[in-house]
Structure formats: structure tokens, C-alpha cells
């Protein structure tokens, strides 16, 4: 039996750090989120995409390392929020040092095929924390729900900070 450090009601999914398992992580998260009646369908989609991006980054962080490394997804719930933690054993990174993209109207914009994941996560969920260490990275994603849902609901149409869509 693996270590169940933390909340007794947590659910853990541990997958090999390989692209074919990101779909399973999405399936588990959307199944758990939809049994949580207070989370609207489009917020479930947001959470699913954010977790998928975090898992993709976690898997890519292992690319140059031992292929037998694994990614852990930990789901937990509280009265007013639910939380998904994605842990990897990669080299870590400094989220403050990520480049920002040029404005979308700049022809240079097309040179950025990458780097869309973290801004997406930031804009889709209510709270995200990146906790890189020498042992790997832990990404903690929080969605408020239950009685407090409306207070915290983000408007998905507004470009988040980190994107420059100004002309």
C-alpha cells in the first residue's frame, strides 16, 4: 500500500511519466469533479484542461530523465473548494522567469508555439501555486465551489495577465 500522507479522503492517481496517460488523468479529474454537484460544467472543463496542462508539463519535465519516473495526481476536497496537486520528479523551474509573449498582432507571435500552458492554467482556475524544488515540482490547483462558487467565478472571456492581446 502506498503512503497516504495527508487527508484521508484524498484520491491519488500515479501514472508513468508518458504522454499516453494524460488522458487518464483528465478522465479521473472530470469524473471526480462531476460528482461534485456544485461545480458547473464549464468550470469542470476548465479544471480538466488546467490539470491536463500541469500533467503535460510534469511529463515533459521527465523527458531527459529516467523513463521510469512517475507523476502523482492528488485530489482532495474541502467545504468550499477542491484541490488537485500534480507532482513530478523533474528538474524544476522558476515560474517567475517565464517569457511573456509578444502582442498577437505582432508577426513575431507566430514564433511562439510553446509557452501557452502555464498562462492557460492561470486563467482557467481560481488559484495555482508552483512549488519547484530540487526533487521536482508540485503544482497546486484550487477551484472554489459550493456556497462560495459565484464569488470566485472567473470570467473566461477576459484575457488573463501574462497574455498580451493588445494591438
Amino acid at each position, binding site marked *: 500500500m502506498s503512503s497516504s500522507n495527508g487527508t484521508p479522503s484524498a484520491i491519488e492517481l500515479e501514472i508513468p511519466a508518458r504522454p499516453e496517460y494524460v488522458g487518464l488523468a483528465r478522465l479521473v479529474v472530470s469524473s471526480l469533479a462531476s460528482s461534485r454537484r456544485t461545480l458547473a460544467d464549464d468550470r469542470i472543463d476548465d479544471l480538466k*484542461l488546467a490539470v*491536463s496542462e500541469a500533467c*503535460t508539463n510534469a511529463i515533459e519535465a521527465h523527458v531527459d530523465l529516467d523513463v521510469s519516473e512517475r507523476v502523482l495526481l492528488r485530489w482532495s476536497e474541502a467545504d468550499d473548494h477542491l484541490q488537485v496537486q500534480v507532482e513530478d520528479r523533474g528538474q524544476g523551474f522558476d515560474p517567475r522567469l517565464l517569457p511573456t509573449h509578444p502582442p498577437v498582432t505582432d508577426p513575431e507571435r*507566430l514564433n*511562439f508555439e510553446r509557452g501557452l500552458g502555464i498562462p492557460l492554467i492561470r486563467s482557467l482556475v481560481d488559484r495555482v501555486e508552483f512549488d519547484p524544488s530540487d526533487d521536482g515540482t508540485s503544482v497546486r490547483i484550487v477551484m472554489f465551489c459550493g456556497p462560495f462558487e459565484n464569488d470566485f467565478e472567473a470570467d*473566461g472571456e477576459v*484575457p488573463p495577465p501574462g497574455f498580451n492581446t493588445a494591438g
Partner: protein
Amino acid sequence: MDLGLDVTEHGDVTVLAVRGEVDVYTAPRLREKLVELVSQGKHNITVDLEAVDFLDSTGLGVLVGGLKRLRSHEGDLSLVCTQHRILKVFEITGLTKVFTIHASVDDAVGA
């Protein structure tokens, strides 16, 4: 996890209909298909996303890469998308201003 990729010709527009989930696992197949079409001389491509259930930043990256490649051939890559949850990903990233997004394949090939 399957990714469906169907190519049809509509006059001088090549429509690539994508079905399923586009993520880090399946996006390489989409990229290969786009590269193949461009190398066959198809420079006017519409990617139909109506049957896509999921699209992440890897998928966005492949589409941006395709657009860039086609522009360098004086071509274009446009999209067909009306699904709210897929459109939202383009909106958040500002890519609605980079791609021409049609409401139907008819719109796209008539345009």
C-alpha cells in the same frame, strides 16, 4: 485514445477534419498530417475542429506552427469551430485574433 484525421478537397481548399482529443499524446499526429499536406502542395488548409472533444496548448501550438508554415508559402490555415469550450481556449490565449475562425466548413470553403 484515438485521433481521427480526415482529408477532403473542396476546390482549392483542403479540409482536415479532426476528431477526438488533441493533447500531448495525439498532437504529433496532427503535426505530421499538416506537414504532409503542405509538402503535397496544399497551401490553403481549413482545420475542422467541430468533432474535437478536447484541445490543449500542445494542440494550439501545432495549429500556430501550421499557420506559420503555410504563411511562408503564401498560404493560409483557417479553422472551423463553434463549440464554446474549444473556442474558449483560443479566446483566452488571444489566438482568435491570429486565426480566421469559420462557423462551418461551407463558410470556410466558400470564403
